[in-house]
C-alpha cells in the first residue's frame, strides 16, 4: 500500500518542474571570478549554455567562470500566511579573472531585478559599475538552454 502511494507521487514530482542543477567543476588553471551574493537566495548561473547551481560559502561567496559571458540568477520565494511571492531575476556579465563582484536582488512593489557591481577598493564606495553588465542570455532552469552567441567573447 505504501509503495502505491509512493508511486502515485512520482508523476507529481516529475511534472512539478523541479530541476536539480549540477555543480560547476572548474578545469585546472581555469580563470574564475568571485561573486558575493547579498540578499541573493538560491544562486545559479549559466556558462556556455549550461545551467549550474552555485555553491556559496558561509559568507555567500561563490565562484563563476571568468572571460566569457555568464548569466547569474537567483530564485526568490517568500511565503506569508496570506501571500506567496516568487521571482527569478538575472543578469549577465563577462567577469574578469580573479575579479570580485557583489550581486544583490532588488525587490520592489512591481518586480525584482539583480544588481551586479564590481568590488573596487580605489573608489569612494568600494564599488564600481561593471561595464559588461547586461540582461541574462540563458536560464539555468530552462529545459534546453540556448547557447549564447558571445560565449567566447572576451
Amino acid at each position, binding site marked *: 500500500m505504501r509503495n502505491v502511494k509512493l508511486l502515485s507521487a512520482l508523476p507529481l514530482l516529475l511534472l512539478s518542474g523541479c530541476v536539480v542543477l549540477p555543480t560547476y567543476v572548474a578545469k585546472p588553471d581555469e580563470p574564475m571570478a568571485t561573486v*558575493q551574493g*547579498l*540578499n541573493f537566495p538560491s544562486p545559479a548561473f549559466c556558462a556556455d549554455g549550461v545551467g549550474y547551481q552555485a555553491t556559496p560559502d558561509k559568507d555567500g561567496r561563490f565562484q563563476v567562470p571568468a572571460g566569457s559571458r555568464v548569466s547569474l540568477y537567483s530564485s526568490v520565494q*517568500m511565503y*506569508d500566511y*496570506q*501571500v506567496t*511571492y516568487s521571482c527569478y531575476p538575472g543578469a549577465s556579465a563577462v567577469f574578469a579573472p580573479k575579479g570580485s563582484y*557583489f550581486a*544583490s536582488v*532588488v*525587490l*520592489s*512593489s512591481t518586480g525584482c531585478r539583480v*544588481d*551586479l*557591481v*564590481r*568590488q*573596487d*577598493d580605489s*573608489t*569612494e*564606495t*568600494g*564599488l*564600481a*559599475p561593471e561595464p559588461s553588465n547586461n540582461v541574462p542570455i540563458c536560464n539555468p532552469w530552462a529545459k534546453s538552454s540556448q547557447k549564447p552567441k558571445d560565449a567566447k567573447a572576451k
Partner: protein
Amino acid sequence: MNPRNIRRAWPAAALLACAVLSGCATTYTDGTNPLNLTGGYYDEPGPGKLVTVGFGANAFTNAETVRRYVLRRACEVVQEGGKGHFLAYTSLEHAAAGLPVGEDLGIHALGGKPFSHIYVLPLDEPRKGSLNAAEVLERVTAEMAEKEG
C-alpha cells in the same frame, strides 16, 4: 493554577497574542531580535565601504513611517561610526555610479507590507547630495513624536 482555569484562559491569551501581533503598526525596534515578530530595523557593514540599513514593517504601518524609521536608523549608524554626514543609495548600482537619493528613499511594499533597504556612505564633511545626520535625526524624531503624540 488549576488546569481547568488554564483551559479557560487559553482562548483569551490567544486573542491577546493575535491583537498584539496584528493590531499595531511596527514600532522602531531591532528587527534582528528573534523575539520581534513584526519587523523592525537592521543594519550591517558592507558591501565595500558602505553600510546596509533597512526596515521591514507589517501591513499596519504606512510607507512614510518606514521612510522616517530608515532615515533615523541611518543617522544613528552614521553617528555611532563617528561621522556627521552621509549619502544614501537605494541600490548597489546607484552606489557604484555615485547616484545618491537624498531623503526620497522610494519605499516599496510586498503583500501590503512596506519595506526599505538602502546603502549608506558615512562622510566627515557635507557635500552635494549628502544629508546631515544630526539635522535629519532631530527632524524625523520630532515628526514621529508629533504623529504618535
